[in-house]
């Protein structure tokens, strides 16, 4: 497979996953905004959402006021924001258009339909579209792309690269969503364990479509420890860091078998996997959740680069 094709496939996975993350962040923001603002910490819940998406500066320059409508525009519709849902969908479809021959008709159809519908939405009167329409739509089109891949795409190297894109991006985004909640949303340690805190944790779980799963898996009170375990270390949770890294490791192993050579990316992912497999929630809290997450995000970025060096430059055999 052409290295460039593999790269485009990898980025289709990343952009679809990223679009979904933006929509989830919007959901967290909307629910949190319904909560009374006490404690004098952050003026506005939306600011933390912007901070976590890494686009607070660009937002301030273009929009100024941090109000829901502006955040929606910025995170959903804005073509100038490279991380908006619209930009991600456009980029995913553009990457798909470049490698059409490596995708089944059904997968291309899902990507192209998403793009056409997005353009339609951008032409629609804004008062006609609620935040829930936007987020539900995003989840649905992401599910359509995944579904089309699952039922129609050949299980070859291309399939692995798309899924590596999903895994790397999802690992990164779960870590970031957790980080927003723990590090940014809470101005002081005194809130940990309070009712306010629980409400926010619940919102986080909901935004990850994991509220019910969490109940099934743990039961009882929602505590920071349980949530951290669920979202970091539980291999049953489809969005946990361990699950993402495990899946990336599987795909890299499959590539190594298909190409009959091991890669630097495998070494990197195995290091991450070993650490997560041995870690306990206590270790993580001892290190500091924020510190742990920052390190994890850094490692995941290195994994992405290792994948690039191993497969996407095309010069080294």
């Amino acid at each position, binding site marked *: 497979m052409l290295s460039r*094709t593999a790269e485009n496939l990898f980025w289709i996975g990343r952009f679809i996953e990223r679009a979904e993350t933006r929509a989830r962040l919007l959901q967290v923001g909307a629910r949190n905004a319904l909560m009374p603002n006490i404690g004098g910490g952050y003026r506005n819940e939306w600011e933390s959402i912007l901070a976590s998406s890494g686009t607070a500066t660009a937002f301030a320059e273009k929009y100024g006021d941090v109000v829901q409508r502006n955040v929606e525009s910025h995170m959903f519709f804005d073509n100038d924001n490279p991380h908006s849902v619209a930009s991600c969908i456009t980029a995913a479809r553009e990457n798909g*258009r470049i490698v059409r021959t490596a995708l089944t008709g059904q997968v291309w159809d899902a990507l192209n339909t998403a793009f056409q519908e997005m353009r339609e939405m951008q032409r629609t009167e804004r008062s006609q579209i609620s935040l829930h329409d936007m987020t539900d739509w995003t989840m649905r089109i992401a599910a359509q792309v995944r579904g089309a891949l699952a039922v129609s795409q050949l299980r070859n190297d291309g399939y692995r690269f798309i899924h590596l894109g999903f895994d790397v991006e999802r690992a990164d985004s779960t870590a970031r969503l957790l980080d927003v909640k723990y590090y940014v949303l809470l101005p002081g340690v005194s809130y940990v364990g309070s009712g306010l805190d629980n409400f926010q944790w619940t919102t986080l779980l909901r935004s990850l479509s994991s509220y019910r799963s969490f109940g099934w898996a743990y039961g009882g009170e929602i505590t920071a420890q349980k949530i951290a375990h669920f979202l970091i270390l539980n291999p049953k949770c489809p969005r946990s860091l361990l699950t993402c890294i495990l899946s990336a490791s599987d795909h890299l192993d499959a590539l190594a078998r298909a190409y009959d050579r091991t890669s630097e990316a495998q070494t990197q992912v195995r290091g991450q996997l070993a650490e997560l497999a041995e870690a306990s929630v206590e270790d993580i809290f001892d290190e500091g959740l924020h510190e742990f997450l920052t390190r994890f995000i850094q490692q995941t970025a290195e994994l992405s680069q290792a994948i690039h060096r191993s497969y996407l430059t095309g*010069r080294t055999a």
Partner: protein
Amino acid sequence: MDNTAPGDPNFFNEMQTGGQVRAPYAGLESWSRDMPVELRSLKQSEAEALFRRIGITFAVYGEGGDPDRLIPFDMFPRVFAFDEWRRLERGIKQRARALNAFLCDVYGRGEIVRAGRMPARLVYLNEAYEKAVVGIRPPRDVYSHIVGIDLVRTGPDEFFVLEDNCRTPSGVSYMLENREIMMRMFPQLFQQNRIAPVETYPGALKRTLASVAPRKCEGEPKVVILTPGHFNSAYYEHTFLADQMGLELVEGQDLFVDGDFCWMKTTQGPQKVDVIYRRLDDAFLDPLCFRPDSMLGVPGLMNVYRSGGVALASAPGAGVADDKAIYTYVPEMIRFYLGEEPILNNVPTWQCARADDCAYVLEHLAELVVKEVHGSGGYGMLVGPASTSSQIEAFRAKIAEDPDNYIAQPTLALSTCPTFVDSGIAPRHVDLRPYCLVGREIELVPGGLTRVALTEGSLVVNSSQGGGVKDTWVLAE
């Protein structure tokens, strides 16, 4: 609504002459007559939705607007009888052979010039004459592997060649997709009429490309398609052909030269490439040989090509054969190289480079079509009868300034084919581009791209100028 109106009697209507429906169209008469208006508009929007969903779109450079514009598709097919096609086929293949013989000759000994049958200046000082490939003999002596020949019809037996396209003629994806969509929407038409299939084209093209593997290639040749990239207006076609032929679609950045060969960068390391079907102009192929600022090409590619490490289709330099000034001499080429009489006629052409011709052209501008020698896509041309006097005067000044740059032809009475329009069905002018393949064998798929000028009375069929496309049928014997 009188949907079989023959229209202006000055133009040959392909569906009916003298109130009689011509035989090839017999199967379409009741179909079009009995189709209710609602069904028609339903089918039309269905076709449009299909095109958009498949992603067949066409971008026009520098026009802004919708980057995903569709070329309008007209559902009324254009039909050729078997016998009509057989004659066209012979003429097209003859022309493709002569053009390749010419290319081989002018980059070799130049016999046609030595024999005094063509002026040396016209060939060797031609902008499209590529000095960098003088003396190179491409595999099987083929320079132009896909020859697109633009034809117009003016009567039952009168066909004229408007121009030849020897480099990388585009549009073949429309020929294939138009057929797919028609078969999907009107299956009964294909049961009632015996229509020769065109779906063999991708297989034939792949065979053709594999048959021109370079000298140094051992075993099964690795064939790839080289595209300028996804911003190119024909990118859809490039992906379509790659898909249909099961070939890798590469960009310049995916290829590199190492030693005597050209390689592509893959997830498993470098892989040797033997034949490149390039959809990239000569000028951009190799920055070390042609334009040094090209980011789209592969540095060193021409060295590998020269030493027989890779084959290029079409071969660099092929452009000199489809130059509009050379065009006049194609009948002469057919006589000189093949010893045959041309089966298809050229349109009579005045070369403004000749003083006599130029004087005639300047006197008759209002009746003529004037074209730039190197122009394409319907840009930079004057259609005398359709122009205002100030447009004509402006063009007169341009010709006087640089006569070598222009040729002129009479305004041809292009045939018409019934076409769905807002008010019903009306005749609209059409042309035809068949795609002839030249490799070990010469092949022509029975069909081509019919372009239609959708504006009433217009003779310009280019998609960049508001033209549309039709499915083109050749009835089986």
